[in-house]
């Protein structure tokens, strides 16, 4: 039972990370119908920025988060304006290949600058270990839980109560009508990219604190796409629910099934992709996604 609970708890914090990445993806998709496969690479970049500011420049935590967020804002704006806007109205493949190529370039730049080595800053985040029953909650996952919960709450409130949040919801609903009503769709797209970049970079700093950063961190972005598929491409609640669910399930599968596998398992790496296959075969629009009806 303790083993089970321990798996669930570590799965929860992994799940919140998934949810954070998926959230960025969903925000961009909802507003601009663009698929951002580079979301995981934003996270990786966040991890390395965190390393640069926290360890290399030895800034305090709040200052380095602020600095990273500033970089993320510039990056989000630049990518939207220079790379994505020329592709408005182009086929799906063009946008997807653009974000994948961006992902490749970002990964390359990270390798050139930071050498792609494993960087860690475990001791920078404050250490609080909670002990509930026999289950110990590691400090990093606790911080991860709290901060990702906070980000999600801020976003939800922002969508509900601010003017730009309203504009974003309107654009998600119907872009043409929104433009006819005098809202600049391009501003909404830019804001969406900035939010996605900021969310990812903050997530990356946390993840870097939890488990260290390395190039494979970008792979977690691919795995998070399973979350998006499971939750539905345009559902923020779905992204969070599916993220947590997938994190827990992945951990449970790895914990219980790996010992049964012929060559040591490694089920955690492939589990999200098995989920994608199953979801796409039985429920292609995800648990909470909007069903599209196609017409000629």
């Amino acid at each position: 039972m303790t083993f089970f609970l321990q798996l669930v708890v570590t799965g929860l914090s992994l799940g919140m990370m998934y949810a954070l990445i998926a959230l960025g993806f969903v925000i961009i998709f909802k507003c601009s119908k663009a698929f951002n496969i580079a979301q995981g690479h934003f996270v990786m970049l966040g991890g390395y920025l965190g390393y640069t500011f926290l360890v290399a420049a030895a800034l305090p935590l709040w200052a380095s988060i602020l600095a990273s967020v500033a970089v993320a804002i510039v990056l989000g704006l630049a990518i939207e304006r220079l790379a994505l806007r020329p592709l408005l109205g182009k086929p799906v493949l063009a946008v997807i290949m653009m974000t994948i190529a961006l992902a490749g370039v970002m990964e390359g730049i990270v390798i050139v600058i930071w050498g792609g080595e494993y960087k860690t800053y475990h001791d920078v985040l404050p250490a609080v270990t909670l002990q509930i029953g026999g289950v110990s909650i590691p400090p990093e996952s606790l911080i991860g839980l709290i901060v990702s919960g906070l980000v999600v709450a801020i976003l939800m409130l922002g969508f509900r109560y601010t003017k730009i949040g309203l504009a974003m919801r309107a654009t998600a609903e119907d872009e043409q009508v929104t433009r006819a009503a005098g809202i600049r769709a391009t501003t909404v797209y830019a804001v969406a990219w900035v939010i996605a970049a900021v969310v990812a970079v903050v997530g990356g700093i946390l993840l870097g604190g939890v488990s260290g950063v390395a190039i494979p961190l970008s792979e977690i972005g691919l795995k998070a796409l399973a979350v998006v598929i499971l939750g539905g491409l345009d559902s923020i609640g779905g992204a969070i629910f599916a993220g947590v669910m997938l994190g827990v399930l992945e951990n449970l599968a790895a914990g219980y099934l790996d010992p049964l596998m012929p060559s040591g398992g490694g089920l955690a790496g492939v589990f999200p992709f098995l989920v994608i296959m199953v979801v796409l075969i039985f429920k292609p629009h995800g648990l909470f996604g909007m069903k599209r009806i196609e017409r000629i």
Partner: protein
Amino acid sequence: MSLPSGTYAETYVQDMSLLRTKAHWLWAALLLVALATVPVWASDSTLTLAIIIGITVISVHGLNILTGNCGLISMGHSGFMMVGGYALAIMSARYGVPFLVALPAAGLIAGAVGVLFGLPSLRIKGFYLIMATVSAYFIIHWLMLQFRGFTGGTEGISVPTATIFGMEIRGNVAYFYLIIGIALLATVLAKNILRTRAGRAFVAIRDNDLAAEVMGVNLWTYKLQAFFIGCVFAGIAGALSVQYIGFANVEQFPFINSVWYLGMLIVGGMGRTAGVVFGALAIKLLEQTATKIGPSLAEFTNPQAAVGLSLILPGLAIILFLIFAPHGIYQLWERFRNYYQQWPF
């Protein structure tokens, strides 16, 4: 195809042939002679590069039929190559199947696996299909590592030397002729597949699958056919790659290759047979450039710079082509050709 004025077809055979004018024949002959004489002047490393480009061309032809013409975007192409590669390795190393039987068999096995993973394509498309094929790659990758008794796990399997009609294929020169020969055959085959009934059905499905279905194109058979054909090409390319290296393991077929294959279609020109060759050449040469100038960059930054650069250069090429020349090198070439064909005007 735009032909110079004064080119008439008197029979259907003439009308349908790929080489219509004397100039076409001349260019084709020149190309063959040029390719045949490459081993005379080229260095060993150039031959290796040419062999790798040849393998890539074969694989991307498959992707071009599947993605460029049928519109079914596959990002698991590297995985299907892996299936073909392992199929050849297992057949020849464990069961002693001769190379000439194992190569087409590897293609067929990869095709069958492709059809299996192509089944969801009947219900989904676009981003969802991309995710299905990405999953296909990672599931294949995982299975290859799991069934260690069969596939050798992380250690991989070594492959015995291939013999064709009693001749052993050894060394870069022999492999160059073998692989460039197959790549030429694959190019002609791919071009001709696209000119058949099935090829036209693929284009109809790409342009609007619902409309195609209403007009009587059977989506079920043609989508799976596209997957089968595309993955047969991939399987053969994977098998050749494994045979050339003499060894099969999963690192030979990294996920990023699937991405670059799609990038080659974009850089070369989506849906164009000639574009495949342009794209494969362009991206592979960029990667080569990265490994050439990487070490000098490494002096300023860090030893991994070459790896980073080999991601940055092709990525930048894809980005620039997407923004400034979405129809790829093929269109640039066609514009240039039209310009000089009609030059005084």
